[in-house]
């Protein structure tokens, strides 16, 4: 049994080894011309505007959590849309996603009525 996993071990060693090798080669042969822009922490192209350890409004966390919840729920639409035309019978597929949406909307209405989305 364990020997079945030998290729995975080889792959693991090779990928780690290759990564280290590339770093060593870059260190040995690459020219090092540090500029201010190059030494900046990478923030997806944005200029850093301060320290990461800042105080954030606590309301942000609730909004962020709600965003994640609904984001994940909407992700379910993609696999459904991909296979929708191949469902048999097709109305069951439609009924299932509509039912799912009713549940999501109930959750949304709940948040709205509870005032979870009010910022002030």
């Amino acid at each position, binding site marked *: 049994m364990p020997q079945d996993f030998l290729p995975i071990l080889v792959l693991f060693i090779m990928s780690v080894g290759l990564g280290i090798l590339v770093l060593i080669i870059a260190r040995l042969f690459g020219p090092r011309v540090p500029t201010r822009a190059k030494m900046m922490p990478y923030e997806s192209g944005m200029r850093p505007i301060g320290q990461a350890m800042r105080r954030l409004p606590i309301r942000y966390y609730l909004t962020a959590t709600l965003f994640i919840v609904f984001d994940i729920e909407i992700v379910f639409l993609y696999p459904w849309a991909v296979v929708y035309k191949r469902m*048999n019978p097709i109305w069951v597929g439609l009924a299932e996603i509509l039912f799912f949406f009713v549940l999501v909307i109930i959750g949304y*209405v709940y948040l709205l009525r509870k005032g979870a989305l009010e910022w002030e």
Partner: protein
Amino acid sequence: MITFPSDLNLGPIAPALVVVVTGILVMLADLFLFRAEDRHNTVWVALGGLIVAFLVTLGLWGQVSGGPITAIGGLAILDRFALFLDLILILVTAIVMLLSAEYLVEQNIEHAEFYTLILFSVSGMMLMGASADLMTLWVSFETFSIALYVLAAYARPKVESEEAGLKYFFLGAFSAGFFLYGIAMTYGATGTTRLMGIAQFIQANAATISANNMLYVGLGLILVGLGFKVALVPFHQWTPDVYEGAPTAVTAFMATATKAAGFAALLRVLFLAFPQLSGAWSTILALLAVLTMIGGNVIALSQRNIKRMLAYSSIAHAGYILIAIVAGGAQAVSAAMFYILAYALMTLGAFAVVIALNRGGAEVVNFEDYAGLIQRRPGLTHALAVFMFALTGFPPLAGFVGKWYIFDLAVRNGWAWLAVVGTLASVISAGYYLYIVVLMYMRPAPDNAPDLGGAQGTAGLAVALTLIGTVLLGIFASPIFNLAQSALLAAR
């Protein structure tokens, strides 16, 4: 072409479905139907839904007189075992709701979400009993656990409650990891997650099965995950802290409903999927049963807080129920289910008295507060005494009959030594159950005794119901036991 399973029979999940819909209706009723000052009315919506679920379960009971019916592509199973569990869970939940109605107001934590979460949690537990596949089992396991994590932390600015929620969440997530890893291992070893498919695989490969280490590891990890939920020693460390910190109504729910669902899942997995490996798991579980009974009862002796005491008592009772599973045989399921019912009634009763004694925000949980209770609240004192005698196992109460069925089963199936350990452990348990009785009847009340509530309202109703149940289940045990017996598992 993606075809849907042709056996889309919603029967097995119908009670759970009714409960989920009720949970959503409670939420919506709170939003649109009731004003803030009428919010307590949501409990009646929840109870109404439970009555509908009860009727649905009774209706299904008549339909499955024959063998079990698998449905939804073999993911769920409809048999009397699942329905019997549903009945226990509905009863427990209804009593917990009666307990909570006034308790939540007094603790200033009343929100309709409480009932919604309880209902969602129960729906997961019901699905657990109706599982015919490890994946269904896993999803229902998570459904009820996640709702319970929130419920444990429900008394939110109270630090103890937050601590309880956090501890339960971390350790619960950890145990869920063990459980899922066990499922993965089992799937790797057998190539299926269907409970009956696993049994068929083991039967077909009986000659080489003892060399299949992955299967044994998987079984062991599943036992760890479920052992955590039902609080077997040595997976019990979370229990006292969580039971003490959580709001008492939630503790009552966790101590009874979770245990019922956890043992139902254990019975399903062990008797449906791994019956041929009983030689392996019965030895392990016998050891765990001894540890659990002795550990729970001995540590309970040193407790001075009634919620912690009941937490260790719930651990000890998990040990007794485990004896039934170890002993196996045709009657193991009915003996275990009967004991779960009896235990649920007794424990709910004890918690009901604790809740009824609450006055205002302060909870009456210290042993000293119970001294001389007979002069102040005679009715509740007698009730608590009955529950303590029943938990110890005095005839003719429910606890005695339950223990008698289990120990009898153990002796007949060659586990006499386990029955002896169980009996000795029950003797130890008298040391703390009866200590409370001694305090209540024979000690004077302290001068600085706290204000007490009384047995009025719905909490009083809950005390009365559990009291009647505890006594009746002891005296008229055989009809209920026969009912449990007809709830035998499908595969046996």
